[in-house]
């Protein structure tokens, strides 16, 4: 809290600074005018640089964004986060969700001319699932027990156990197919270079400055695309916005909430607002008093006015959670329209029933970013109205992760302001890591220490079949149980905000906070 004032000041200053930075942006030497560099060059400014270019060893959204342009997967996600065919024109799964067979498009070649066939696919997944290779995304593929090359264009995956969500793992932005010739050049090579089969080819990466890609004229799907993509890391929010306004960038992400108004008022640019699949919530430690009592947990939900959080704290770019997961997740269905109702009287009644008529004191762990502090303060004020004294304990990311992931016996957590974005876009990964008994820290992120055998059984059932209709039903039922058990205060789901220069198309901010430029194009401005 000590730094709260200054951080906020800083943000306000930079926010107001957009106008100033804009003036300089126009004359700044740091970028050439977008489009000045050739036929159709699209310039993109993002908040950070890529960390690596090896998809299976990637954990950050920026790297995944760049990799998505150059690499194809067997399947991928549409900009709306629905699974779509990429290298595999079709696929089928066995009833028991243990065998997945993909039929590849014929005659596809990698950018280096290497043929893309079933053997190449097998080689990629064998590399990724070998624990000796110690790749960050091991768990996406570690359930595979064998991979068979049926013929040149057919590849079959057999799993150790049924895993009904496997298709979503294949669509995950990290499960991309790299040219075997590039893999042969070693880890260092593929961490710095990309040889894929996607709509854009890798040209160069100057760390800290730019990544350059060019259109792949041989791509199997012929859609009009820009000739060149230049992706620049522009760390400072105000500079990024200034680049967009000055015409030095066609797409920027993110735009912080405080600067959206400035951008939406400017001419020649539009704000792209798209729903994320990030669910914000407060986990309550279900194994310790006072949150052992479900009435207390429900009372906490009644005590929070979600409309204030949505409209004031989140400036309107959010909506209340109406389920433990969010719209856009495969298998989501709403539990309570409009979210958990705001009812102070009911909250108080439930608290006195539970023996806390006089309220209690508790501590909220959170990150120390400005938005987290704002949210924490709002919760503190609302809970005060039902007699609950909330101590705020904001922590630096590394410390926070260390205390949160302590095993149950040593874990001191009471309340945790947190959230989750399921990178596979599927209900299993949206719920199981957060609410299964097996997911208690340090295994995964069940920081509420929620435990319900009925819920555990449902999660297992959801993985035992790949039949999406059946899975939808299972998750619709289990989310109702979770909602009533209220292991969390269900808060909100927000929008991702990007800026687009008129004339640019096919540039999307996606629900998982990565971007999709696979069909990026530039018309007349």
């Amino acid at each position, binding site marked *: 809290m000590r730094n709260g004032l200054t951080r906020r000041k800083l943000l306000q200053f930079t926010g107001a600074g957009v106008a100033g930075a804009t003036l300089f942006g126009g004359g700044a030497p740091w970028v050439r005018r977008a489009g000045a560099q050739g036929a159709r060059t699209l310039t993109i400014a993002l908040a950070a640089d890529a960390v*690596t270019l090896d998809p299976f060893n990637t954990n950050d959204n920026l790297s995944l964004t760049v990799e998505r342009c150059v690499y194809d997967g067997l399947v991928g996600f549409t900009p709306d986060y629905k699974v779509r065919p990429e290298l595999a024109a079709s696929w089928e799964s066995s009833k028991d969700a243990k065998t997945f067979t993909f039929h590849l498009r014929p005659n596809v070649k990698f950018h280096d001319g290497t043929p893309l066939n079933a053997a190449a696919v097998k080689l990629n997944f064998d590399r990724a699932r070998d624990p000796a290779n110690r790749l*960050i995304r091991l768990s996406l593929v570690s359930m595979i027990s064998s991979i068979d090359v049926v013929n040149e264009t057919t590849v079959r995956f057999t799993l150790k156990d049924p895993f009904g969500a496997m298709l979503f793992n294949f669509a995950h932005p990290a499960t991309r197919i790299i040219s075997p010739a590039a893999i042969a050049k070693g880890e260092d090579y593929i961490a710095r270079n990309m040889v894929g089969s996607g709509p854009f080819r890798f040209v160069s990466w100057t760390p800290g400055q730019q990544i350059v890609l060019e259109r792949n004229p041989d791509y199997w799907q012929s859609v009009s695309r820009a000739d060149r993509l230049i992706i620049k890391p522009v760390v400072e929010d105000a500079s990024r916005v200034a680049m967009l306004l000055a015409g030095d960038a066609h797409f920027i992400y993110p735009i912080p909430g405080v600067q959206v108004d400035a951008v939406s008022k400017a001419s020649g640019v539009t704000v792209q607002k798209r729903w994320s699949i990030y669910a914000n919530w407060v986990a309550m430690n279900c194994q310790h008093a006072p949150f052992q009592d479900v009435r207390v947990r429900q009372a906490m939900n009644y005590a929070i006015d979600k409309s204030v959080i949505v409209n004031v704290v989140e400036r309107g770019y959010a909506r209340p959670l109406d389920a433990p997961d969010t719209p856009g997740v495969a298998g989501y269905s709403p539990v309570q329209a409009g979210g958990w109702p705001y009812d102070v009287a009911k909250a108080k009644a439930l608290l006195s029933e539970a023996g806390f008529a006089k309220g209690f004191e508790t501590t909220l762990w959170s990150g120390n970013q400005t938005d987290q502090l704002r949210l924490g303060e709002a919760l503190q004020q609302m809970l005060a109205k039902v007699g609950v004294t909330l101590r705020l304990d904001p922590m630096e990311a590394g410390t926070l992760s260390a205390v949160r992931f302590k095993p149950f016996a040593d874990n001191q957590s009471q309340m945790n302001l947190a959230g989750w974005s399921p990178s596979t876009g599927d209900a299993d990964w949206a719920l199981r890591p957060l609410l299964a008994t097996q997911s208690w820290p340090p*295994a995964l*992120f069940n920081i509420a220490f929620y435990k319900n055998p009925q819920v555990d059984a449902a999660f297992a059932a959801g993985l035992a079949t790949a039949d999406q209709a059946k899975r939808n039903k299972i998750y619709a039922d289990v989310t109702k149980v979770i909602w009533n058990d209220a292991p969390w205060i269900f808060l909100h789901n927000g929008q991702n905000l990007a800026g687009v220069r008129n004339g640019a198309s096919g540039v999307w901010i996606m629900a998982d906070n990565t971007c999709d430029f696979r069909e990026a194009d530039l018309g007349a401005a």
Partner: protein
Amino acid sequence: MIPILLGVSLGAFVFLHAIPGDPARMLAGPDATLEDVRAVRSRLGLDRPLLVQYALFIRNAVAGDFGRSYRSGAPVREVLGQHVGPTLELSIAAIGLAVVTGMGVGTLQAVRRNSLPDYASTVFSVAGISTPAFFLGLLLIYVFSVDIHWFPSGGMSGLRSLVLPAVTLAAASAAVIARFTRSSLLEVLGEDFVRTARAKGVPGRRVLMRHSLRNALIPVVTLIGLEFGFLLGGAIVVETVFTWPGLGWLLIQSIGFRDYPVLTAEILLFSLQFLAINLVVDVLYAALDPRVVYA
């Protein structure tokens, strides 16, 4: 020098590992399974005993290899190399500014002791010493970039973007140098040899520049050396406020990721800078004071 660096490396190693936070967990991300985290831990060599890790670090460091950044996988030398330039540029600009204004103001104060300019500049230097850099930085951003649009509010884009961070960084140093110059010069001005010089008719300017100031400079040079050392390492706050991509900024980024190799190398680099500056200062003594001779 070698024992000092060895001690620093041990201290850095111990303290960095004592900070809560697991680099493997940070790198693998919040949605990583234990399996993923173990894979990363083994990739980074963090699954080995601490003593072995330290021994390996020292062995490689002696050969000039500081390992690879946990975050990017790039060699640490390469990572530091990208950030040394901006910090040097900023520190040199700041120390230049601080020395010129600090010594100028200090001399003026000493010569015009107890006059209005003396009092006025005393107020300014006390304010300079006591204003924290982050506050001054924000104030300057507010006035000069938000209000009157003279300079960019952050980032590194040409000379104009250097002005605000350099002024912010120089302010405190300039104030300290001014105070030191003033008191040191006052002391010298009261010495017998100055009176003698004046008595034998040496012109006032010459008395000041040749006889007094040169004598008064010895403690000031020590101070400037120390200040420069602080600027090189202590630009953390200013670099963060102005998103200046230097070593201080890198330090903050690396702490966030618990990037031990980058952090250890940075701490060693900062110590080395201090040692080097102290050496330069010692040599400067000899230039200023003929009595000091290094055999």
